[in-house]
């Protein structure tokens, strides 16, 4: 009986080895380990054995079973692994083919510049304010120390709708509106970006509609050196830590003193080149200390309060930063232009 079991084991192991599919393997399992298989048959004949022999044969039969079973398991694993490998090989793709694109949009360059400037001033404690694009003559001019007949009104010929209503020529009326709203009672620290309109014929450097960002800080003891410090931080963050600023006299009816801010030319660092027209400097924005009449018209005590204001053109900044050569690009919305600035 022993011999028979050994024989069966050898036979089964050979068949396991020869099997190549899971089906064949299953057949082997059923044939040798099934209820009607030869090992079970051998065990059935155990009744004829002696008391001493029975446990020996029983144990042997179990060992044989286990050996066959583990041989079967092992073989099954290897067949499965092979099958997987084959399947994966079949699934291989050409990863160099183009991907399925997700639609890509993005902000307008002017919005990017405006938001960058907003965030920069928010970081210095400023709020963002908005105001109407169609203004009254009062807020657009008179509240800013530009009474009717003032020669500086020539500087910004305007689109009037009626005698008293016009397209705002700058974002400065938002200053006056904001100050008026709080009636001279506390400090104001804000910037206001927005669209403005002037009677200019559209060409490479002029646009009848453009963008402005105005800034205003009114408080007790605001100094001109604070303006210089704030503008210096703005210029360095916006254009680079290696840029210097300078202030030089200018004129705006709503500030006194009034200055223009230049930054050092990034090409020549102040030596003078064709980019900066040999001056070493590039004009960026206008600024100044808020005119006492403007403060008083808004209800502030100009002895107690002082402030600074500044105004800049995002188009100009974009043109300087990215070398855009024609202001009309911002308004024709050529997709090829817009997409250039969708990259982070």
């Amino acid at each position, binding site marked *: 009986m022993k011999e028979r079991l050994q024989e069966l084991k050898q036979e089964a192991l050979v068949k396991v080895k020869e099997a190549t599919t899971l089906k064949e393997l299953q057949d082997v399992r059923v044939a040798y380990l099934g209820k009607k298989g030869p090992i079970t048959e051998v065990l059935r004949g155990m009744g004829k054995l002696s008391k001493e022999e029975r446990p020996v044969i029983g144990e042997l039969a179990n060992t044989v079973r286990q050996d066959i079973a583990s041989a079967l398991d092992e073989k099954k694993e290897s067949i499965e692994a092979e099958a997987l490998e084959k399947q994966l090989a079949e699934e291989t793709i050409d990863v160099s*083919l*183009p991907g*399925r*694109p*997700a*639609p890509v*949009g993005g*902000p*307008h360059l002017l*919005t990017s510049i405006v*938001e960058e400037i*907003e965030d920069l001033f*928010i970081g210095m*404690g400023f709020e963002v304010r908005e105001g*109407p*694009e*169609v*203004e009254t003559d009062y807020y657009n001019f008179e509240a800013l120390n530009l009474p009717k*007949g003032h*020669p500086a009104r020539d*500087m910004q010929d305007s*689109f009037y*709708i*009626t005698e008293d209503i016009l*397209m705002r020529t700058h974002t400065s009326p938002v200053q006056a509106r904001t100050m008026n709203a709080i009636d001279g009672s506390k*400090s104001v*620290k804000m910037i206001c970006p927005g*669209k403005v*309109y002037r009677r200019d014929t559209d060409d490479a450097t002029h646009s*009848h*509609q453009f963008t402005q960002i105005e800034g205003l*800080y009114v*408080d*007790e*003891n*605001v*100094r*001109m*050196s*604070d303006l*210089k*410090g704030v503008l210096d931080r703005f210029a360095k963050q916006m254009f680079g830590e290696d840029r210097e600023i300078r*202030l*030089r*006299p*200018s*004129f705006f009816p709503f500030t*006194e*003193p*009034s200055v223009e801010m230049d930054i050092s030319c990034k090409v020549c660092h102040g030596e003078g080149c064709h980019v900066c027209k040999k*001056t070493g400097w590039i004009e960026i924005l206008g600024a100044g*200390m808020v005119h006492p009449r403007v403060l008083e018209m808004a209800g502030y005590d100009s002895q107690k309060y*002082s402030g600074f204001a500044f105004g800049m053109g995002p188009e100009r900044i974009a043109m300087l930063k990215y070398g855009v050569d024609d202001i009309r690009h*911002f308004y024709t*919305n*050529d*997709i090829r232009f*817009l*997409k250039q600035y*969708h990259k982070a």
Partner: protein
Amino acid sequence: MFVSLNWLKNYVDIDQLSPEALAERITKTGIEVDGLERFGQSLTNVVVGYVESCEKHPNADKLNLCQVNVGEETLQIVCGAPNIAQGQKVAVAKPGAVLPGNFKIKKAKLRGVESNGMICSLQELGIEEKFVPKEFANGIFVFPEDSEIGAGVTELLNLDDVIIELDITPNRSDAFSMLGVAYEVAAILDVPIRLPQNSVRTVEEKATDHVSVQVEAQENNPYYGAFIINDVQVGPSPLWLRNYLIAAGIRPINNVVDITNYVLLEYGQPLHAFDFDKFGSNQVVVRQAKEQEKMYTLDDQERTLSSEHLVITNGSTPQALAGVMGGADSEVSDQTTTILLEAAYFDPQIVRKAAKDFELRSESSNRFEKGVDPNRVRLAGERACQLLSQYANGTVLDGVAEFDQLDYQEKTVTIWTSIINARLGTDISNDEIGDILRKLNFDYEQDGETFTVFVPTRRQDITIFEDMLEEVARIYGYDNLPFTLPQGGAQAGGLTKNQQLKRHIKSFLEGAGLSETVTYSLTSKGRVNQLVSPEIQEELVSTVSLAMPMSEDHSTLRLSLLPEMLGTLSYNLARKQQNIAYYELGSVFISKEEEVTKQPEEKLRVSGALTGDWITHPWQQEKKQVDFFVVKGILESLFASLNIDVQFKQAKLDDMHPGRTAQLFINNRSIGFAGQVHPTLQKTYNLKETYVFDLDLDYVLEIHKNEPSFDKIPRYPSISRDIALVVDEEINAGAIQSTIQQVGGELVKSVQVFDVYQGKHLDAGKKSIAFNLLYQDPERTLKDEEVEASYQAIIDAVANEHQAELRG
């Protein structure tokens, strides 16, 4: 204003700096220098020559053969200029000279005759054509008789001058004169100023015996002075004077006109010379013009005046439009011998009005408009008299006939060192303040830190403390101001909720594949009424237009962002950019009045325009054109991200495809629309199939609640059921869906369309719509029976309400 540095040197020493360094200092301290130009170039070997003889060239009709004495030698020169003549003094470029344009002068033979140099025109010497006096425009230049033979032309013609162009801001009218610039430069460089020596030699005869002055419009003309100069000989001005005018950009005409222009530039005071013999009377009457009164100005134009204009008359007819232009009647000519010279102060506004009405902006009107220095009016007249006597042989009568109510008083402004330092953030001493005032040539009285400044009348712009603050700051130097940061309490700064939300909406749309545009707010009358959303139309009473548009294209304020956006699509399509998805955030403007008298309401909209392919993936043959559902999908997701429920209802709107348009509602309030542009309108923009949306952003911001509430993540399983219904093709999926939702109640978490079919497997006029229903209860596991019961109730309800049959 163009400033000749050679001219400026007569008043201040500027030789310590190069022209470039001087320009930089002027820019940094006071007035922006817009340009710096070398007038000409220094020329060597170009000298004054005397034409001893001038004969026809033996072999050429149009050429002359001249013997020219240039000092050490006499040169034979062939000259083709038509105006060459014996006895002239001319500019001779000797062999070896190099003229502008690198034109080298050599000995040559012209038509067989030796020529040793060239006789030059001003243009050949590098002077711009427009500045060349008319008589020399087509030939050589002839020097005055007293010019020294052999003298270099560089100095004589001022060719070594440097011209700086000042961009003068409206407040600094004082710098519209050479003396004003001289004061400025004197302050910057801390050098003394030399004023012109003004000594008129007059005869005993009095001007007042010949002319009287009467001013009726006294407010508009507080000073009028009339000088009389007899025996004038009109002719060319001296060379130096012509040179200065040319450098300043003014063409020389004759000595009388040139002298008034010279004084205008020197003092900033415009003057006018009348031919007194043609003036028509011996009285000057200044008055407002009469309505419809007519006069001919110097340019021979007939002008129709009104009572808003000021005129200088002879008692009956206007002889000049005050401050703007003289009259043709009494114009100075070559025959003029007696001059009435006007020196006056005209009100800035009245001059401005006339200059604007007649489009006659001139050097004169420009200065009157900005306000001239009261203390220089008579002085300028005297200066002109002096020059007329010197350079036009004039006999100046004694005194001046005048009307004078001018305010000559200096303003006083008080400043305090401590307040100056507090405003600037500086630490300037009393002594430094005093020093700055001295540099500016301002008189002052000092009492400790208090300075009472007597502001000279040339500085009309300085009236209050802050004006003086600026003077101190700029002379002290903005470069010397420290960099500080505001001391005030730390404000938080930041964006408001609405501003954050707007940024969210922008980023969402950009993430969905849309590019932002910025289009013009001003559109054309033709476009303005296109694609206006129903809720805007309802509120609108009138559109808002500009009183004086520059062009029809930008004449009216938009009611919708879409027309201009379609314009940009059209622009791109014309450039072969077919696949475009744009959005824009911006205001539209509506008036609620028939006649606009108030500011229009500004309504914030977010709009989009899409055309062409939405998805392309060529190698897998995938291509999807933009359609209604692309747009709807974007909007649905947008509103989902805002946690706002929005309904799309089939709608027929002007300019939109009647079958592919939805009106959008939130809480039953119209907030815009989405759909395909009507093919007829598409065609006018040369567009293919184009989809748009336009939404009321104000309302979206208003109702948005920024804090999402916490919903528990469901712990119990959901049960999914599909239902396919056959209905008439007119039935909207949305209608069936709302029936399902209503009947299903809270158990039905979501209803999704997953298939729509119409075709050969169904009867004509029928379609099948398949929905997926998701059942879920957050508190427990649902039983099959409840779901089954709900499902049956839904089938009954849709059969009832929409005649829907289950698809077998």
